[in-house]
């Protein structure tokens, strides 16, 4: 299980569910810079797509290793933010996009910290309006992933990453649990769909320790969101254990949830979430 190689014949799929509700206009500290959660989320998503493109880059062109889906949910609906529901990494690479100058802090081998300015392409623009129809997003994700799994029965199962700062406004916890269960039940011959949840912390939230990939013994924050997100997240396959153990210094098995983590950790999580990309070659 979860051992399929990601190749041109057996593509991988990453579906991002993005909370674009009004509360994402609140501020968060991201890589030492204060910005809105929606800006930080867009930055993280754009960097993930760029990372996927870089990983798929071959000598003369970009290889078609991934299908990417991006669903934004806000106001009363969940919609695909890309032209098609699933877009190949090649198509995304060929899409003309605006660029943005980003200041990144890097640590040199001698320990010094330097700030560099890099140009990054923007597939997603920050947005924050309306309510949080997470239930609808899960329903749309299920439809998208179901059709993808039918077309790619022997591929590594889709990875769905839900990035949110709060609870759904269109479904109760029980309903979200049922929808998530329905989503996780989708599978390819290589295993069940992996559902990851990332809860973005607010600058003004009560400070709590960030929680990354908890195991069964990890005490969860006393917050109903944390419990709900833990319950609906997939247990992570062994494939991820080594990288996560290095990150968290706790023993496996892990759950695919990151609570109250800063967005630095989100980027770290996404890199881990894309470990399957290492299997391309």
């Amino acid at each position, binding site marked *: 299980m979860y051992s399929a190689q990601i190749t041109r014949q057996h593509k991988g799929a990453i579906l991002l569910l993005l909370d674009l*509700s*009004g*509360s994402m*206009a*609140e*501020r968060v500290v991201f890589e030492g810079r204060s910005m809105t959660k929606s800006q930080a989320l867009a930055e993280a998503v754009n960097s993930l797509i760029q990372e996927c493109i870089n990983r798929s880059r071959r000598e003369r062109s970009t290889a078609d290793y991934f299908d990417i889906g991006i669903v934004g949910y806000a*106001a009363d609906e969940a919609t695909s933010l890309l032209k098609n529901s699933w877009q190949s990494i090649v198509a995304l690479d060929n899409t003309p996009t605006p660029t943005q100058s980003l200041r990144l802090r890097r640590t040199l081998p001698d320990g010094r910290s330097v700030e560099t300015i890099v140009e990054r392409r923007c597939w997603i623009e920050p947005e*924050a*309006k*309306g*309510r*949080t129809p997470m239930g609808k997003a899960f329903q749309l994700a299920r439809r998208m992933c179901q059709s993808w799994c039918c077309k790619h029965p022997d591929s590594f199962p889709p990875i769905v990453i839900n990035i949110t700062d*709060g*609870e*759904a*406004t269109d479904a*109760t*916890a029980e309903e979200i649990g049922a929808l998530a269960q329905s989503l996780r039940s989708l599978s390819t011959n290589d295993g069940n769909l992996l559902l990851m949840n990332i809860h973005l912390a607010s600058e*003004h939230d009560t400070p709590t320790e960030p929680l990354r990939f908890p195991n069964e013994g990890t005490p969860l924050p006393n917050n*109903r969101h944390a419990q709900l997100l833990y319950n609906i997240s997939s247990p992570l396959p062994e494939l991820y254990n080594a990288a996560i153990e290095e990150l968290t210094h706790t023993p496996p098995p892990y759950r695919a949830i990151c609570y109250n983590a800063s967005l630095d950790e989100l980027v770290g999580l996404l890199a881990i979430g894309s470990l399957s990309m290492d299997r391309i070659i």
Partner: protein
Amino acid sequence: MTPLLPIGAYIECLQNSELLAPELRHLLPADNFEREGFFATSKWLNFLLHDNEREYILTTPQAGQFARSERAIQMRVVHTRKCDYLADCQYIPNALTLFNSQAKSHLQAAILQPHHTPLYDFVRRHCSPTHRAHLHSALESIWHCAHTLTQTGLRHGSLTSTNIAFTPEGSVRILNYPIVGPAKCDDMEALAKAAIAIYIGGSELSAFKLLAELSNTPQHNHNKTLRTIASAAEHHGIGPLAELSKAILQKANHSTLLMLLQKLAREPFHPLTLLTQMLKTRTHNPLRIIPTEHPKQTEPHIKIDFSLCDQVMPASDLIVRYRRGNYWGYAHYNGEQIGVEKPLLGATDFEEGRAVVLTERGYGMIDSKGRFVLGDHWSEICWYCNENIATAADNDGRWHIYDRMGHQLSAVACDWMGDASEGFVVARRGNKYGYFSTSGHKRTDFIYDEAYGFSNGVARVCHNGHYYHIDTSLHHLSARLEHALEKE
């Protein structure tokens, strides 16, 4: 002299109030540490004690007396309740952790069972014209209760409608009984007044509501109300109601009251339209509900029993808005209360984590944790969930645009702001209108004689007496488009 027994609770506790758990400091006021072995509250206060599973509600204001040590507790006599009409009182050893120390505390409290309903809510629940049998049962039970108390000699001393509850079948349960101390009122008279209230509730709910509101006004003249009831009852030919009201006024003896209570319990309900009219003239605010209690501003693990609320609105953003008396509160849909630091006289549904509320001071806006993001000092606030902004006016009538965190976005104050839509807010200064963007920037000068909100990308304006439409670039629409719009 018989020592004053703790009315609500015995609690073993530490003598230093600083060691009280923070969430209990406002629930367990302790301001007298002088007596050895005890401390007491000098004020009469409402207590609400809770553990993780249950609430122990002491529904009447009372002075509490708490033991400091186990020995002091053992000195106390635990009252057993042998009368059917007295609410259960339980001694619960090691039941609660009330303090920072790990030690458990003991509690003796009158327990409001989940199925017990306060008088006001009981009447509200059973006042349907087709389903008033429970109200007759309640009247019957009040008579039996009064009879029993007279026979046994038990005395409450501060009985009012607030510490009378009912079982689902309509049997009376008296809370916080007994008190050994000076009597503040006559128990029989209180029961008779409760019976009158129930009868009026069963006959004419609007009259009952008005009566309840009137009774809770500070300057309420109870005798005048009783005279009003008596005269209305005479007009409608309801003898027992008129006689009982007059008997209370005339301080009739207990046997007379008992006899009249029995007669009233057997009297069919009659419409009391005249009483409603008469009470309306005294309230000036018909059908406003009394403040029986306001939602306790306590820690979020307190659960709200929605069945005991006077009004419960459908959940919005999974948060339920409910009313008890005149006060509003919020709770998660599973009942978990959202504490707000001030009593809420008005409240709106949550929309994407924000709700506009009204306190005694003014309007404010709270987040989903109950914290004020815009303080409660505004004369008006409008929250636009889809635009993620609020517009608010201060007491001088100056309007500004604010973001969801309460930061002011607009630099220019206006005399009025209209609805926010499609990224714009229409505003007025003096007698001219203009537009702001929802980011707070002024998009046009105040040049229009009239201006309306954007809809489907266009807005109607009037400039120098000419009406036309502008688009979101604020350009005048072409004649062709204008014509098409007019046709539409």
